[in-house]
């Protein structure tokens, strides 16, 4: 059984289709690139998986269960925006995650924060945008989740920060977990991908392993992406 199953998934905003009949299986233990240009439906697919949106039709199953408390306990989600209250301190957020997620490793989180030189007593409103993103990443990657959904984790950050983010993801995700990374910056993540899913206008145009893509097309995933999505 696949860790995550999408079947004929449709999501419309009013009459505008955001996802149009997505069917896909994501097995455990894979790093999957959810790749597509802006507005292709990547974020909508992730939001449907983590329960922030309700599908118009079709199903999403995580470990055989529809999005709900059980699936949310197994899924770690990093959105493309800061979801932390500005008034809370970094330490309060560590406590918050420890309170709600059984798989949260407080020691690991504190070690990562310490390595980054972030004072846990500081409130979020006193931190820079980049530091907030790092805190959020630390919190998410300190969980031993079955699946990690990372929505545009490297968008809008400098190359050094990208390296830090990718290293943090690779070093910290649980061994049997799947990591789903949504991005349009393929070049930076191609080396870590096991699978790639190309998505355009709410439809999957390609889903294969990165190795197969390179072998069958003779091109890197990045090059193929540029070709497929050329304007």
């Amino acid at each position, binding site marked *: 059984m696949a860790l995550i199953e999408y079947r004929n998934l449709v999501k419309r*905003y009013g009459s505008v289709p955001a996802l149009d009949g997505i069917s896909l299986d994501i097995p455990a233990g894979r790093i999957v690139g959810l790749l597509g240009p802006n507005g292709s439906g990547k974020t909508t697919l992730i939001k449907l998986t983590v329960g*922030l949106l*309700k599908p118009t039709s079709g199903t999403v199953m995580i470990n055989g269960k529809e999005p709900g408390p059980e699936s949310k306990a197994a*899924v770690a*989600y990093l959105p493309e925006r800061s*979801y932390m209250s500005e*008034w809370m301190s970094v330490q309060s957020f560590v406590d918050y995650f420890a309170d709600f997620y059984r798989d949260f490793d407080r020691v690991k989180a504190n070690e990562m924060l310490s390595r980054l030189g972030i004072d846990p007593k500081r409130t979020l409103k006193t931190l820079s945008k980049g530091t907030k993103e790092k805190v959020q990443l630390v919190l998410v990657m300190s969980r031993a989740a079955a699946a990690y959904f990372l929505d545009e984790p490297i968008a809008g950050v400098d190359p050094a920060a990208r390296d830090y983010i990718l290293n943090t993801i690779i070093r910290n995700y649980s061994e049997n977990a799947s990591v789903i990374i949504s991005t349009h910056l393929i070049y930076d993540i191609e080396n870590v991908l096991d699978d790639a899913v190309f998505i355009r206008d709410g439809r999957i145009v390609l889903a294969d392993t990165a190795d197969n893509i390179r072998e069958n097309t003779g091109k890197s995933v990045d090059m193929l992406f540029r070709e497929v999505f050329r304007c």
Partner: protein
Amino acid sequence: MLGKLMKYDMRYMARVLPWIYAGGLLISALLCGVIFLIDNELVLLFGVNFASFLFIVAVEAVSICSTVFMIVRIYRNMYSDEGYLTFTLPVKTSEIVNSKIITGAIWTLISYVVAALMVTGPVLTMIYKVPQIFGGEGVTPLQVLDYIITFFVEIIRANSVRVITVIALVALLAIVTLFYGPALYTFCASATHKAKKARVFASIGMFAGISYGVGVVISVISTIVNIFGFSDIDTYMQGGVSFSSHTDSILPPVGGIEEFASSLFSRQLDLAILMLLTVLLIYVAVTVFSWIMALRITDKKLNLN
């Protein structure tokens, strides 16, 4: 998990609301001081009237600030960027809604207590001070407390079904109104979360609109009950007469609750029961509807964009 959600909701509210309450109590204490220091009849008339006006504004401000703060908390925590964390926690969406409503009810209860304290202080000071200015003897707070205890003891002794029903209905209404506001503004925030812009204002506007509508409905029913509840206009006019018209004391009569309950006021008590039941039903209906709709929207129609 509900307890954990409530812990963080309570903690958020505790950042600001105690300061609002402290401000209100300070204003109340200042008013007590003003009343206590006045010894002149003329100054009393103008000074206390003006201070009372400011005081009513302060009580309203405390109430409005608390409500707006709670609405903003609900909106931010559920339907702004923070909602991305709130709705991905491993909890049922019903627990998220229930946490907001129960926490809101607890803070509403605290607001009631603060408002009661804000009003009690100046009232007790007036009861003590005003008769002295007019050459009489002031009633001390201990005497007022003794009076209240005696009043309720007599009610229990009298075993008047009407009076006990009124008290029970008032108590029930107080409990329902604790949940009325939080349930209504959780519903309003949920109903307006898909609006393209000005969602906070939309939710506050919807809350104010429904509250006003409920107020109008209650006023209309109250007027109808009052007019048609009395056989003639004279009795209706008597209905507006306060307890104090039947006594020389500044406080209502304590003795003879049984007689009181079966006297001229029995008709009024029947109407009071009818009115309270009607108001209670309206509040219960709006609260239950809001609660159910908030649960339904978050469970079936959530759309965080």
